[in-house]
């Protein structure tokens, strides 16, 4: 498929716009000097990802991403930033020489991954577009064939919940413990 054919499909314009938004927001996540701004740019990157899922007719996963990530995870991150009093205005000491090697390494990662996926898949692997995947199919699959991974994941979530509470809880000093016991 030539580039002219590719760009003539209207859905690819949407892809191009969303993809640029995702890449710009992702770039700002890793370069923004303000910590809170970085967390808010993550919202942009994840919203763009949800848009890509909608293009790929994965409607349920897109909304799960919006609810879980933008609704819960980013809020958790903002709490983490506020509680640890991260230097909100300060620059991240990105002095020259500190970012050159990471940039080189990540560029190498990108080249290897992009090259291998371009080699492995030809441009004839056209994606099926059209009707969104019914949520019923996902539900049948989650509680049918994938019921054991589903239970394992829910157990992981429970363990993480209890572990998070246990780790973040402040231990009482001996004096406080005595006071509590005497009440």
């Amino acid at each position, binding site marked *: 498929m030539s580039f002219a054919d590719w760009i003539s499909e209207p859905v690819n314009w949407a892809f191009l716009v969303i993809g640029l938004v995702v890449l710009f927001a992702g770039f700002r996540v890793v370069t923004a000097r303000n910590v809170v701004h970085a967390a808010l740019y993550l919202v942009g990157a994840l919203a763009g990802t949800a848009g890509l899922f909608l293009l790929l007719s994965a409607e349920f996963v897109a909304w799960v991403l919006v609810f879980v990530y933008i609704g819960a995870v980013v809020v958790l991150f903002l709490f983490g930033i506020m509680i640890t009093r991260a230097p909100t205005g300060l620059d991240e000491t990105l002095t020259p020489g500190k970012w050159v090697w990471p940039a080189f390494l990540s560029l190498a990662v990108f080249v290897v*991954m992009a090259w291998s996926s371009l080699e492995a898949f030809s441009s004839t692997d056209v994606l099926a577009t059209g009707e969104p995947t019914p949520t019923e199919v996902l539900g049948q699959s989650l509680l049918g064939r994938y019921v054991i991974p589903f239970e394992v994941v829910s157990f992981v979530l429970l363990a993480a919940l209890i*572990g998070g509470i246990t780790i973040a809880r402040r231990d009482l000093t001996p004096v406080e413990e005595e006071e509590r016991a005497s009440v």
Partner: protein
Amino acid sequence: MVVTQFLVLAAALFSLGVYGLLVRRNIVLILLSLELMLAAVNINLVAFEAMLATTEATGQVFAIFVITVAAAEVGIGLAIVLLIFRNRRSSNIDDLNLMRY
């Protein structure tokens, strides 16, 4: 739409996450970069699902699993960051050199 356009975009997002992981010094920001990499993985899973069109929507199911595990990871990770901050008054990863020597 072809599958490679999504794969290349996901590769770019993943390498941005790698860059952030290496450059950032604040632990919370390192976790943010990790989220970018997980989002890239999810794009790949959903794109392959759209290409293969399995009867059980396997790729989307695994994307949901990745999202769930990522949520658990953020919860635990931020709890650990909170504990470190309470004990050492810092969330800079360069200050955590207690076990280095």
